[in-house]
């Protein structure tokens, strides 16, 4: 085993990576990605999509459908983050003067970008959207009607588009974050339920969000109309007749089988491969930089390879007081220990672990790489997750 590395920068970056190459298929059920999946199911593959108020790039997943994804945001930080997450082009501009020629996009999408606009400004923004939308193009919006009723918003869209469809949403299904957000929470929520939600661990919260997302997905698939919450609606508008509200262009194959297999000239890179499964021991990738996945006490990666001669990866400890309390790391393959060592210094460690002869040819080419850490620590994040180390550049050489 080779170890290169030294002291690390102590940082607690909660900088979620939305790059499509890092998207886990299971996240389609996560209620946080429910609107992204709704847009994913309503966007035609290979089309041109404009995302208004793109933020860090919540629609980056659309790249799996080979769309040309363009973003617009007023914040330069958001512009940078969206570019980093795989948007083809991002512009810093406002919604009233978009820097595009007429009839440029097949879809114009916004998630909460219209919330804060007053009626007159919304009309200006809608006129600008219609200008850049191709004939027959569809515009999709997720909005929270804070200032006016759903009917008023629909009638405004009808001034610009011949066909408008909408569904009230999120009256039943909300994420843990929404439940615990005082601004979102109404007075009807039961106190003991909120107390219960507050006491959930990170894994339990994720399970809660996925359950909520699953229900949302099923309700949508079955066409069940939720009661109006008076808060959020999903809206589609077009001059052409509108197809299915939830899955006009549903094709989820790209969610499961990415073209990105992780094959490189030197072997297999697991980080961005669509064929590799990172279990729930891993947290979503974050930008440290570079993009890396943090883990808790134990995490596994399942992958397929004809043979494995060696495994190399970059590792960094994300714990405090490392010199006094080194973290013990154990790396195993298919249940067999490959290496065990202690990390007592900060900095990226470059590990190359040779694989024993007996393990090189796994059962039917299926392998499971397991990493264990002997201690964790609560990260300074909103969810106070337990983390130990972060890993990236996981390469399998055969």
């Amino acid at each position, binding site marked *: 085993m080779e170890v290169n*590395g*030294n*002291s*690390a*920068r102590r940082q607690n970056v909660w900088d979620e990576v939305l790059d499509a190459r890092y998207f886990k298929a299971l996240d389609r059920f996560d209620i946080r990605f429910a609107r992204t999946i709704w847009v994913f199911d309503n966007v035609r593959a290979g089309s041109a999509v404009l995302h208004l108020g793109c933020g860090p790039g919540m629609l980056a997943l659309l790249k799996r459908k080979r769309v040309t994804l363009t973003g617009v945001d007023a914040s330069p930080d958001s512009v940078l983050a969206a570019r980093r997450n795989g948007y083809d082009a991002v512009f810093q501009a406002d919604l009233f003067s978009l820097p595009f020629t007429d009839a440029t996009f097949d879809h114009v999408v916004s998630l909460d970008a219209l919330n804060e606009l007053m009626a007159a400004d919304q009309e200006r923004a809608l006129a600008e959207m219609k200008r850049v939308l191709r004939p027959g193009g569809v515009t999709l919006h997720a909005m929270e009607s804070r200032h006016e009723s759903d009917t008023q918003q629909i009638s405004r869209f009808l001034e610009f588009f011949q066909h408008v469809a909408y569904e009230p949403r999120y009256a039943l299904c909300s994420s843990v974050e929404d439940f615990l957000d005082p601004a979102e929470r109404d007075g009807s929520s039961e106190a003991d339920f909120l107390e219960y939600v507050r006491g959930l661990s990170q894994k339990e919260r994720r399970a809660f969000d996925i359950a909520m997302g699953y229900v949302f997905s099923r309700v949508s698939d079955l066409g069940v109309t939720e009661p109006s919450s008076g808060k959020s609606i999903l809206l589609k508008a077009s001059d052409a007749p509108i197809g299915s509200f939830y899955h006009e262009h549903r094709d989820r194959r790209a969610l499961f089988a990415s*073209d*990105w*297999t*992780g*094959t*490189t*000239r*030197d072997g297999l*890179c697991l*980080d*961005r491969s669509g064929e590799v499964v990172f279990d729930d021991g891993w947290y979503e990738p974050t930008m*440290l*930089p*570079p*993009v890396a996945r943090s883990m808790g006490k134990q995490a596994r990666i399942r992958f397929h390879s004809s043979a494995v001669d060696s495994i190399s990866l*970059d590792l960094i400890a994300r714990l405090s007081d490392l010199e006094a309390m080194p973290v013990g790391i154990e790396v195993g393959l298919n249940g067999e220990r490959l290496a065990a060592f202690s990390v007592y210094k*900060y*900095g*990226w460690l*470059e590990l190359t672990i040779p694989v024993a002869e007996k393990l090189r040819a796994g059962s039917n080419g299926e392998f499971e790489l397991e990493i264990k850490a002997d201690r964790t620590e609560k990260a300074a994040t909103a969810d106070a997750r337990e983390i130990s180390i972060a890993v*990236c*550049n996981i*390469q399998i050489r055969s």
Partner: protein
Amino acid sequence: MVDEEVEMVLREIRERVISQARAEQIASAPADVTGNGDGAITGADETSAAAELARIGGYLTTTARTWDRLPPVISNRSGAMSRLELWFKSRAKSLARWFTWEQINFNAAVHHAIRDTLEALTRQQAAVVSLRRDVETRQTEIENVVARLVTLNARVDALAVEVRTESEARRADHQSQRGELYTMRAEISGESEARRIQIEDSEKRLATLVEIQGRKQTADLSKLTNESRERDEEIENEQRVSFKQLSLENSEAVSFQITSQHKIESALSELERRIKQLEESLKHRK
């Protein structure tokens, strides 16, 4: 004829008397009231000389009258006696010519001598008077000069007194200033000594401080250097991992591109094959 001679003699006598009286008057005149003692003496001398010259002039009337002839024959008698006397005297006159001639020569010589002497004395007197006037003028000038000198002397004395007074005041002032200077010098000396001691103390403190600061800065610098080195290493390390990630992504993209290219090529081949099949089937139909 005799009357004329008598008249002439009488006139001579009168002139002599007049001139003598004038000389005496001059001699008895008071001294020069404007002059000083010397001037009065000089005026008396001058007056005396003038009287003497007047007297000499008076004598000359006599000599002038008698230097070339003998006295006329006269008689104070009357009658026959008078005639006798006159006759006799006229005979005696011719007889006595031989020795009276010499007398006449002598009289002429005396007369001329006195006259020349008088003229010379008169000129001398005039010269003396002129000289005396000159002397008096000079003396006046000298007196004026002396008066001016006296005035000047008085002024000089006054100035000297003033200068002396002022000098005395200056001296006193100077002494006072010197005293003050000595005092100040002593104060400055004391002050500078105190400052010197103070500066020495400050220098010592400063040196200590500089040494402490130097040590601290050296330590800080060392710490900063270490931190900087660690930071550099961290960044280098981070860059290494990032570049490695980038390289892997690039490699994956190349692999993806090759795969896609193969897929497209195989799709094109398949398309070409099917077109050929279609063309063949069309030919067969025809």
